[in-house]
């Protein structure tokens, strides 16, 4: 334990740097996935075939093991950040798309009727009424995706991706040396801490962005 703490103390800068990279790659992927997932949900939620296809397709993506998906992306995108971000986006789509669809479907028809009655067009209804009402659920989807990708991003270090996974793989490559365990432990705990930090962030975002009428 002492050894571990002194290791962390000596390598604080490296660990912070890797943690920051890890958070950046996850954050980038989540922003892209949110745009794509919400767009996909908005275009398919009121078409039974469309939304079934959207959920089935994004669900299939999520079934593919991360190492295999990275393997398929490398010939197209090379090593490093790009395949990492793309893979994380692909994994994040299902929770966000599905929750957007469910959230939009849960908006009561009477509310839509009222919006139309006040003279709102389809676009304004979507932006001012439907999406705000569906937002808490969409946000939950984004949060689930984030928790998922924080862990998956660790594997991307093997394909020259950024982040705390490097610490874990370095530990593995130094198998037998004194610091191997400290490094692997620092990387693993770092990922857990990051996941918890993201969770706290979402807690705050949720409080700040939930429409006033929906707050409990």
């Amino acid at each position, binding site marked *: 334990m002492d050894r571990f703490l002194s290791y962390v103390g000596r390598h604080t800068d490296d660990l912070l740097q890797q943690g920051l990279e890890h958070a950046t790659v996850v954050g980038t992927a989540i922003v892209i996935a949110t745009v794509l997932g919400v767009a996909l949900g908005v275009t398919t939620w009121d078409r039974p075939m469309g939304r079934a296809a959207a959920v089935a397709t994004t669900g299939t993506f999520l*079934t593919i093991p991360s190492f*295999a998906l990275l393997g*398929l992306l490398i010939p197209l995108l090379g090593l490093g950040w790009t395949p990492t971000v793309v893979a994380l986006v692909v994994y994040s789509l299902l929770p966000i798309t599905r929750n957007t669809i469910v959230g939009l479907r849960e908006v009561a028809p009477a509310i839509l009727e009222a919006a139309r009655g006040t003279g709102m067009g389809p676009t304004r209804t979507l932006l001012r009424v439907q999406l705000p009402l569906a937002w808490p659920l969409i946000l939950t989807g984004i949060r689930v995706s984030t928790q998922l990708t924080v862990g998956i991003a660790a594997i991307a270090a093997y394909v020259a991706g950024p982040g705390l996974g490097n610490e874990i793989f370095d530990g593995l490559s130094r198998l037998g040396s004194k610091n191997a365990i400290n490094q*692997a432990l620092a990387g693993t705990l770092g990922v*857990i801490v990051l996941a918890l930090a993201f969770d706290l962030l979402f807690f705050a975002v949720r409080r700040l962005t939930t429409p006033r009428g929906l707050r409990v």
Partner: protein
Amino acid sequence: MTAVATPASAPSRRRSLTGVIGIRHLATPAVVVVALIADYLWVHSLRLDSIEQRTLNSGYLVGRTAEHLKLTLVATVLIMSIAVPLGVLISRVRARWVPPLVLGLANVGQATPAIGVLVLLTITVGPGVGVAMTSLVAYSALPVLRNTLIGIQQVDPTLIEAARGMGMRPAQVLWRIEMPLAVPVVLAGLRTALVFCVGVATLATFVNAGGLGDIIVNGIKLDRDPVLVTGSILTASIALLLDWAGGLVESALRPKGT
């Protein structure tokens, strides 16, 4: 597969298995078959160098696939025999704070990266199949444990009350009321675990425990795209097919009336 998709033997159990096994259920196998054939034709059209030939021959591919399936299926059986009874046991505990604590720990556990667990175990115990198997079980047992707990907790308390009123003993209530009603949730957890296992088993290569990860790593290290793509497609195919089979089992075993 036939054992799973035999609506004829139990026509009343499934509302419309024949209807459900429509285009929707054939899509996954179709995609997998197309991907495998396309990969096969592509690799065949190439002139493989000696490095590629060392990996891309049927003996090596079948060997790694068999290792992968063995890791996955043995781990799933172990998970089923550990996590389900454990979940039931925890749901029986009288102390109210125990189940939420376990659920919370399971959530934190899920945030732990699988590769971290694997590497930490390897450093402390040493590389090998045992370590790979332990990480597979430890990591993938969480969804099953959680779903078993949730599945039992979500059973309508009035049903349990009614069962007790009929004179059922606690064991009977568990076996004849709670367990059957929890089955769909438990199965969903097992299906998730199965998919997790296929994924985590690709990492077994890092601790010299074989599996399809070997092929992917060879492809990356030697910079040979045919090797890399073949390994990835095989891995993805196994994951998709097992998930597909899990889905069929799920709909076949759903209790009547739910």
